[in-house]
């Protein structure tokens, strides 16, 4: 058997196509083509389970089926919700395809990334945050408002890019909780915390050139031209673009000149002296990396999935004998 992506889902599309054959509808296609079509959907954040439906529908329609839906079995999700769904907190969300009850406050709503998308943003509870998404024509009608707390029941978990998120569908009931039932999370002041090591550093850090326009501030490759604003005279700035890694997850963080100085002890003047001494702009990044690689840091701010928006941070203290004793005892209690 050739190794094909999404084999299970390709088989599901095949089932739909075969069930249409009894009505004389025949579709000529290859498993590879079906697999590619499913992958195209996945790239657009559509679950493979949903892609099965869309791909089957479009193939059957092309082959002349008037009502393709009758051949497509199953709903949009792996298994239907049962009567009672476990109520989980943000920190407990690990499995995809699970029907749950979730209570959270909308702390951010972003513009949809695709035209097929309806709403997206982040929900917070006392334990953390989770991304939510709803799609056009999914049947989910509630317009979620930033700052409001909702009870979602049932809602299904999905996975994208290694992160579990909530998918709001027509099955999902969203009830707005008010007064004492609301979580009391203020989107303007809400922060999360991550702890990890700076394990890697990325391009476009160190001494950089920015567009001088206050509303733009884009990092420029060519200091005389901003792709958005046209001809400009760039402003030199310092920033750090690093990867924080806690052994399970990683985030990209940006640190501005002031934050970089407080961690790496490098002022703007010192950076310029370095460049003068070595006659090489890249020395600033190298210096920051040499100071910060391997540091254990606690960051406060907003989790945005792949990146973390830093508002504040502190270096973690090295462990005390007591800290180590606690770990040792945890190990000793293991079978």
């Amino acid at each position, binding site marked *: 058997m050739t190794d094909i992506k999404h084999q299970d889902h390709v088989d599901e599309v095949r089932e739909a196509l075969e069930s249409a054959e009894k009505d004389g509808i025949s579709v000529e296609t290859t498993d590879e083509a079906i697999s590619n079509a499913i992958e195209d959907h996945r790239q657009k954040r559509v679950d493979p389970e949903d892609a099965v439906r869309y791909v089957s529908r479009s193939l059957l329609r092309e082959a002349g089926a008037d009502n393709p839906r009758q051949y497509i079995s199953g709903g949009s999700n792996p298994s239907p919700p049962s009567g009672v769904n476990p109520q989980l907190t943000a920190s407990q969300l690990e499995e995809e395809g699970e029907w749950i009850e979730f209570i959270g406050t909308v702390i951010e709503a972003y513009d949809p990334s695709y035209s097929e998308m309806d709403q997206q943003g982040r929900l917070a509870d006392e334990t953390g945050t989770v991304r939510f998404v709803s799609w056009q024509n999914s049947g989910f009608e509630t317009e979620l408002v930033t700052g409001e707390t909702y009870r979602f029941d049932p809602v299904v978990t999905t996975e994208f890019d290694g992160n579990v998120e909530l998918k709001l569908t027509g099955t999902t009931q969203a009830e707005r909780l008010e007064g004492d039932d609301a979580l009391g999370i203020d989107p303007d002041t809400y922060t999360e915390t991550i702890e990890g*090591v700076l*394990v890697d550093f990325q391009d476009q850090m160190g001494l950089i050139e920015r567009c001088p326009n206050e509303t733009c501030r884009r990092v420029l490759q060519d200091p005389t031209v901003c792709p958005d604003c046209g001809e400009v005279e760039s402003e030199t700035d310092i920033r750090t673009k690093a990867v924080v890694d806690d052994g*399970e997850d990683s985030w990209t963080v940006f640190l501005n000149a002031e934050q970089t100085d407080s961690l790496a002890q490098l002022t703007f003047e010192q950076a310029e002296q370095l460049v003068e001494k070595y006659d090489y702009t890249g020395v600033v990044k190298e210096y920051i990396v040499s100071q910060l*690689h391997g540091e*254990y840091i606690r960051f406060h701010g907003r989790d945005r999935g792949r990146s973390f928006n830093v508002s504040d941070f502190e270096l973690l203290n090295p*462990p005390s*004998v007591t*800290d180590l004793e606690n770990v*040792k005892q945890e190990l000793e209690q*293991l079978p």
Partner: protein
Amino acid sequence: MSQSTPSRNPARRVFAWEYKDATYEETRGDGDRSPNMVLLPTGQWAHRVFLVGSLVDIVDDPDSENYIRGELQDPTGRFPIDAGQFEPEAIANMRQLDPPEFVAVTGKAVTFSGDSGPVPKVRVESITDIPEALYDSWVKDTAEKTATRLTNFSNDANDAAALAAERYGTDLEQYRDAAIEATEEVQEIIREEMAETEPDPDASPTAPGVGQD
């Protein structure tokens, strides 16, 4: 920010005593960038590792411009590390280091063919000299992560652990004992340092930073 690139693989924390046994390697996943992973004996896939220890050796063959290797020691053993033509910055940084030195290494977990089968090593992405205190932080961190892996080892849903048991016949006790010994060694070092800086024998045996968590 691109939404479709796969998420970055985290850097696992593992002691040398365990890593030396991570000889099983596999290409995982069905993406375009299917990552290469080694299987840790305590049941976790590692594409990347983060290490802290003492750089005890650098071997820079003058005949091969694009290759350098070395050895990193932690409280439980040694990691072979190297860098090749795709890591020019790592090569340059390794050439500037002068063993013995405390270093932090971020690198890819890979194996090479040894005389008696595959041998795990770490392909260096970043290496820097670091203050000694980070060694202590890393040992605590790595002991905690080892404890978590050992705790999760017998979970039914832990496929990596099931495969580790099958491939290695994992004897978990030795990895637990190595982690315990590592924490004890660092405790001892901290006590000695405190004795040097604080000669008063009646002083409370606590280091700065206690109670801040």
